């Protein structure tokens, strides 16, 4: 015990050791981040561009719309775009929205045609129940939205034709998708008519 107590390092040594350990670790990580973060940002941009292209395939170029978008759960608001083809003709809009689902915000990118009908959507991010809520990513669920306008977005649980069939066991998630798309459609419509 006494021999051990003799070797007990002072507070100064402890502090300096810890400072060295954390300091060196921090510097090395800083160097690593210097190389990886630009790659990450680049990949992220490519991925976002791919999603825009997927929701509005006819468009060759996406121009940011001057619409104030509510900042969402992840901090930065996702901008809205209008898509134009080679000749500069307007082919539609891409809006990004998030709506409260069962496990948090369901973030969507929605393609909209010139006459305010839904072209399709992609799920950017969600936290819904696997197997239930994540069926919003399935093609046969997505297909129900194509060609509908905001008034036609009505949820049914009895499989009525022309309406959106709620996913069994994931009504809240269905509502999040329908609600999010509906709200952004209406907002887009409103902003465009006032402009």
């Amino acid at each position, binding site marked *: 015990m006494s021999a051990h107590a003799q070797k*007990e*390092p002072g507070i100064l*040594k*402890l502090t300096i*050791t*810890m400072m060295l*350990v*954390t300091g060196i*670790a921090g510097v*090395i*990580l800083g160097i*690593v*981040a210097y190389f*990886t*973060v630009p*790659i*990450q940002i680049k*990949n*992220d941009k490519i*991925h976002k561009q791919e999603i825009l292209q997927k929701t509005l395939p006819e468009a060759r170029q996406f121009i940011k719309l001057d619409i104030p978008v509510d900042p969402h759960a992840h901090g930065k608001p996702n901008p809205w775009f209008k898509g134009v083809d080679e000749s500069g003709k307007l082919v539609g809009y891409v809006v990004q929205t998030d709506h409260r689902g069962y496990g948090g915000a369901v973030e969507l990118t929605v393609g909209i045609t010139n006459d305010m009908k839904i072209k399709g959507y992609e799920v950017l*991010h969600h936290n819904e*129940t*696997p*197997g*239930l809520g994540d069926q919003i990513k399935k093609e046969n669920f997505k297909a129900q939205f194509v060609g509908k306008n905001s008034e036609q977005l009505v949820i049914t649980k009895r499989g009525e034709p022309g309406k959106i069939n709620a996913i069994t066991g994931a009504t809240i998630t269905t509502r999040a998708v329908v609600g999010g798309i509906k709200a952004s459609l209406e907002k887009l419509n409103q902003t465009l008519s006032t402009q």
Partner: protein
Amino acid sequence: MSDANSPEIKTLIFEGIFTKNPVFVLALSLCPAVAVTNTAITSLGMGVAVLYVITMSNVFTSLFRNYIPHKIRVPAYITFIAFNVTFVQLVMSAFLPRLYESLGVYLALVVVFAIILARSEVFASKNKVLPSFFDGIGMGTGFMLALLLIGVIREFIGYGTFFGMTIIPEQYFTPVLMVVLPPGGFIMIGLLIGLFNLIGDWRKSRRADDSTQQVCQIDQKEAA
């Protein structure tokens, strides 16, 4: 501090995968074992990340074991672990963004996985660099294989797929949804732990049988 006798590399790896398997035998880090194992690919991603972190943290701990004062060893080890986890996060977010997204917060939580700090404290702080490295490899591989096994089974029963490839077409298959939800994960892990124990018991009884047989033979000889 004196080093313990260096154990053999083969034993270290065997122990990590079988006799001291982090998930099935030590029952450590069960939270991620449930949370990220509903598909095979996320299980594998998490497993590889942990394999890397546990190995490198063991190496760092062992390298600096004689310079870190006893009093601050835990914060120092945690810093080593956090360093390696952040490194994995940075690399993964740059090159495997989809996997990084699906692992979510659990990748950052690798810092506090009991198994990693346990290996630093129990093994790497008392052993030389090379055995510590192989202890990390063994334990990490054991963890990875355990996660992968759980993930492959859950994905197959829950979605009918293997690494995202459809094995059973949807029209012939009703997915057992519960298996991909957390309760199903716990049940699956329970069953696998049971299976591991069964295998362990079987091996033990076989060894016991062998020795009783030998004893019998000796008895017979003596009787003769």
